[in-house]
């Protein structure tokens, strides 16, 4: 097979990121040790921005499948790629100060983030189970390392050990599912699978097993119950910007794969997977939101809340309509801003001897640092789904998709669980505003943090007040009509 110009153009953003990461890996040696980290960080942001421009230019093209049917370029892929770019850039901005605080003197930190980003982009564009699997691994391997980046911190070591053992285990299960589907349909091409499934003879019991294995494999990556056991530990032990990166970009990438595989490849057998996905979704909603109440560590609390949010987003897949899919896409976009914003505040609280991880540490924050407390309030209200923030619109939109499909009981459970979620988010707000501060707050100050937080606040409010533009963007980008 000979590559044509069209192939190269379609994968230009991926080429930009991978080539950029490789160049930075080598070029780092030319930069003096003292400023190496920061320079690499700025260049990393530059390469992501360059890839974003590439994507913007080629997003105008109509849907094309290149590289022998392996790789698809459509609005859906471009939309998700923008979510990943935003997540990566915000995480890098949040890291600038944090890496100094934790004495991570290695510039590979940022380069690994770029490699992980390239994996996510491959996932979003995967039209074949092989591409999607390779993208999944390319995304996960750097994140395993990043989680363990605080080499001297025992929690970080343990977090990454748990994450990689369970991650490898779950990708093994996913692969077994893929191999069964290949055996039954004779192809790994999503379009081909959909075609083969119209033939009723494929519907043997083994097929249901394969589908359950796929749900388990992807369920692990999105941290859905009962495949969430790794999430609280990995989120707590990882460097905080990486926790944000995992909960936002990695989760969004897994959702990109999940929607593509189940809606494009397996939509003809929706009856087979709808119930399983609905069960995972309800379990995530209940377990995530209820267990979060009991947490005293804010990173752990946000981890359980992230399990709950995976549950909300999964409901969009259960609905299975164009409205549901665009709902998930919009949800991932808003979640990127509000969750990274909340982690940004946690990172700001990390300074010197102050770990800033206990919820009690936030007592009276509003008395001395009004702006920071207000930002946290906006992010938490958005996570809880209180108008006029983006989180409300995102939830509303998913619930509407459910109701239009007549799945009222699911919508009722989801709304009830939002009420539970409001309790533990509001508790932090209460602690920030109603308590007296225990002592002076030491806050990390850096331009990167300020930029990231301001950007996140603006985005959360803007998408809450004027969601139409973004929702239409998501609607136009769905791959089903």
């Amino acid at each position, binding site marked *: 097979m000979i590559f044509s110009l069209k192939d190269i153009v379609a994968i230009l953003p991926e080429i930009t990121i991978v080539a950029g990461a490789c160049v930075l890996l080598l070029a780092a040696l030319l930069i003096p040790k003292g400023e190496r980290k920061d320079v690499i960080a700025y260049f990393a942001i530059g390469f992501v921005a360059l890839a974003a421009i590439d994507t913007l230019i080629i997003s105008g093209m109509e849907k094309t499948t290149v590289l022998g049917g392996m790789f698809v370029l459509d609005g859906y892929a471009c939309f998700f790629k923008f979510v990943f770019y935003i997540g990566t850039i915000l995480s890098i901005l949040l890291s600038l100060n944090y890496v100094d605080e934790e004495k991570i003197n290695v510039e590979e930190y940022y380069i690994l983030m770029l490699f992980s980003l390239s994996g996510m982009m491959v996932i979003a564009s995967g039209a074949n189970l*092989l591409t999607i699997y390779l993208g999944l691994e390319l995304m996960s391997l750097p994140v395993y390392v990043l989680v363990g980046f605080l080499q001297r911190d*025992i929690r970080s070591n343990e977090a990454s050990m748990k994450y*990689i*053992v369970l991650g490898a285990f779950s990708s*093994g*299960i996913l692969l*077994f599912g893929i191999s069964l589907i*290949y*055996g039954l349909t004779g192809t790994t091409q999503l379009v081909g699978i959909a075609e083969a499934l119209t033939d009723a003879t494929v519907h043997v019991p083994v097929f249901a097993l394969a589908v359950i294995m796929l749900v388990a494999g992807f369920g692990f990556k999105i941290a859905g119950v009962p495949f969430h056991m790794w999430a*609280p530990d990995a989120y707590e032990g990882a460097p905080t910007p990486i926790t944000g990166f995992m909960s936002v970009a990695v989760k969004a990438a897994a959702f990109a794969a999940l929607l593509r595989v189940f809606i494009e490849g397996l939509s003809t057998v929706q009856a087979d997977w709808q119930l399983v996905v609905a069960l995972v979704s309800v379990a995530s909603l209940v377990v995530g939101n209820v267990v979060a109440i009991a947490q005293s560590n804010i990173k752990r609390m946000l981890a359980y809340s992230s399990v709950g949010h995976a549950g909300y987003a999964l409901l969009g897949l259960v609905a299975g309509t164009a409205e549901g899919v665009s709902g998930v896409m919009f949800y991932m976009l808003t979640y990127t801003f509000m969750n990274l914003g909340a982690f940004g505040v946690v990172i700001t609280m990390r300074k010197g001897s102050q770990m800033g991880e206990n919820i009690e540490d936030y007592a009276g924050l509003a008395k001395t640092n009004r702006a920071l407390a207000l930002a946290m309030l906006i992010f938490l209200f958005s996570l809880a789904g209180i108008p006029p923030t983006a989180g409300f619109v995102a939830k509303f939109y998913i619930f509407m998709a459910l109701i239009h499909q007549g799945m009222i009981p699911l919508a009722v459970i989801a709304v009830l669980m939002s009420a539970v979620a409001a309790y533990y988010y509001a508790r932090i707000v209460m602690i920030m505003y109603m308590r007296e501060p225990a002592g002076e707050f030491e806050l990390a100050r850096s331009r990167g943090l300020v930029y990231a937080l301001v950007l996140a606040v603006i985005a959360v409010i803007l998408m809450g007040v004027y969601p139409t533009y973004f929702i239409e963007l998501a609607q136009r980008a769905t791959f089903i009509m």
Partner: protein
Amino acid sequence: MVPLTWYIALSALLFMVGVGGVLLRRNIIIVLMSVELILNSVNINFVAFSYYLQDLTGQIFAIFTITVAAAEIAVALGILIALVRNRNIINVDEIDTMRG
């Protein structure tokens, strides 16, 4: 010729052994070996199906799986070394600093 069902039975058996090893064994090295068993059972599936269907995709998939498995195990062993240096433990049930 060996019928296809034999291969599938073998791979299902290997898969079970792998899953059992991950869930029951305590030593991290053995857990990682069990993960490798799972990945190899997948490879058997792919190659058997590939031969049965007379289609190359399965073999290509198997080659990629082998490559990824090698990368994965390299990263896992690296992380294990960091863990052993800090705490000198090798059993999964001793990884219990974080709870809740």
